[in-house]
């Protein structure tokens, strides 16, 4: 008998389900879209290797963008790591504006964070070295650990894997 109060809420949920229209799970829209690039009419899109492979290929054709052990069992600081990674990506996108051609890869090992990526050659090497020093120092003040940038540079078009 004591179950009835609980049951009441369940009934309510099921009632709601029936009354709502639930457009997003209709056959048209119930579809995985995130991380997938589709051709657009009249626009040619240049995709990198990373963009050309949809998310279900992670670990088979392509790899992760963040490397850490926060999300294994008993991992350390999972939520903080995520927020910090978002911060690092935003910071790099803003500081290295229009320079990164690839995704920003963040690897954590012990107390060090290594930020890797492919950049284009729009800036002089001296300026790039300035930005490397600046980013490493400022982020290490922010995250309280040593930061290393590991960059490779390519002439602009070299990262295009395919056009759709």
């Amino acid at each position, binding site marked *: 008998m004591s179950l009835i109060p609980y049951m009441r809420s369940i009934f309510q949920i099921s009632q709601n389900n029936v009354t709502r229209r639930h457009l997003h799970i209709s056959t048209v829209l119930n579809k995985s879209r995130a991380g997938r690039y589709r051709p657009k009419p009249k626009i040619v899109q240049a995709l990198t290797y990373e963009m050309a492979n949809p998310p279900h290929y992670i670990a088979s054709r392509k790899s992760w963008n963040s490397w850490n052990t926060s999300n294994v069992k008993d991992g350390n600081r999972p939520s903080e790591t995520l927020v910090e990674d978002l911060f690092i990506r935003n910071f790099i996108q803003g500081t290295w504006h229009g320079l990164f051609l690839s995704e920003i890869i963040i690897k954590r090992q012990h107390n060090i964070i290594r930020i890797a990526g492919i950049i284009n050659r729009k800036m002089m090497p001296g300026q790039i*070295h300035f930005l490397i*020093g600046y980013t490493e120092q400022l982020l290490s*003040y922010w995250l309280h650990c040593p930061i290393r940038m*590991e960059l490779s*540079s390519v002439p602009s078009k070299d990262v295009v894997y395919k056009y759709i």
Partner: protein
Amino acid sequence: MNRLRCLLDRTSWYELRRLQSSSSVSNSKIKIPARIQRDSTDILYALESTIPKDFINLSYVYHDDPYLYPLRKIDYRNRALSYEAGKKAAIWIHKEHGDLFPKHLSDPEIEAFKPPLMYTEKSQVSEEILLYTISKRMVSDALHIYKLLDSNVSNETKQLLLELLCFYNHETAAQNNLHLEQWFVISQDTHIWQYTSEINELFGFLVKQDSLTAAAAYNVMICGLTKHLRTAEAWALYQKCEEENIPLNITTYNYILWLIPDIFGHKNELKIENLFNIINIINKKRVKPNVKTLNNALNVIRVTNVDNKREIAKRFLMEFKRLNIKFSLASYYYIMNIFTGNNKEGHDNFLQILHSIENETFNIQDPIDLKFFKHAMYLASIFNDREAGDKIHKSFLAKDNYKFIATAAIENAYYSSYLMLVLSTSTIEEFFKFYENLIPNVFVPSKRILTGIIETFKYNSSPHLMKYIPRLWSDINTYCLIEPSTKFILLRLIQIDILPADSVLRTDLVNIAWDCWNMIQKEIKKERYTAIENAVTACIAIILLHGNRVEESIKVMTYTVKESNVFLPTMNEKQVNELFNNYIFKKCIEGAFLILEYSVNSGFPHIVEMATKLQKLSVFTNVDRQRLIDLVGVEALNSLDTEKTS
């Protein structure tokens, strides 16, 4: 059966051996080796020693990327300083906007990442905080806290603050650990003496206290003033101390000794007199001298121009040896300066000094220590003593002696001397073996060094050199912007005709000549250019001809002959003949005509012979005959014809 017995025998024999060996172990005493005291980093050194040396290692400062890794000598400096400028920008932001950064993220807290604390009120600060700031060498912060405290601190703290101000007056690089800046930039601001009013106030207060506090204040003030090149003030203060009989410590006396050459300039007798005065005072007051006392005394003797300076120096050295004071590298630097004149005796003394530092371990005790290896290598190159040079280099690479080269300028001078020494004392093969090991992995040569090497080869016509010209050519184009005249010296060294026909070097050398020609064309198009000798272009044409690139050589010669006003006419007869004969050999009428035209224009002899050779060519046509008439005139040609008929 026999077989079984044999097996049994063998087993028992093994058993016996086993028993014997175990009994011998049990009989011998286990000896535990004595404990070796090791540092915390010794395991890392041990691990490092297991790795073979990597000769293509890159400096960790720069990014290992073809676009980002520096090539030119100047780029090494620019990029390293850019990197550190970025760091400095971030440090500045962190300092100015510390409130925006997380404060308690690390656990345990790491001091280096925490934003600096800003104090605005008196209630926030205390003497402990001031002492902590002084211990962290933060000059401006310490002064700020001191002012917030209304100068209301103990005399000891005031003394410490004065010491901080006197020692780290304006140095910021040391505080921020900017190693690259210290490596590349020669500090020019040693004379800057900031915070004068604060220092004077502190000093004025401290000298009015009890005699011990006052003495300490006098000591530190003299040291600070000397360190920042305020020599007259420091000397006046020293005089005052002497008059009032204020006790000074050995560090202060050392600084006073350092002052002598600046104070007395060219007055040699006064310098020596004052040196002995101060040493006598040190002796009388029973202050124990240290190695810096010796070094600074030797410095005075070094800059003094008196006849018996070697005897004086010897006396000092013997006296300090008797006091059992171990010499530092700076002492040896001064000894080298005093005892090694450019003669046989000087050379012997030099070798003796090198012998005495062998297998010794040195620590940095004096800023002048850093000059030792540079000067020793310089002397080795002056004496042209390869053995001594190798010995110096060996002891330089031993242990952590690399620390004795502290700036890029010193490193440059050291390797420059070593390279020149090896160049002047070994064969071409030996030199280039050494050169390839050293450059660019250990050291990147400057323009001056490369020019020096090429200048040395200027009159060397050794065929062995050919093998190394491509390497030298690529190096002078990679590491620095070198003048065309130096490149032309290298070009003129090329003797392609002595190489075998199938040699792979030929293409490289021909390409060098072609690069040179492209460079000349660019140079000529400039508004202001230094006139180029046409002997160089002739040289290029010869190399191209030998490399079977006839069309290109004709292009070069056409330009040289037709635009002769842009060149200095230095082409000699030998070159003209070589070019002409080669064109004739290759049956290239166009080229031969160009050379003939040049010879006619410059009035070379043998024009008639040249015309004869040209006429005899099987590909010679009537049109060519007309051209020949236009060039050498009908008479010459007629005389040729008459010669032919007769």
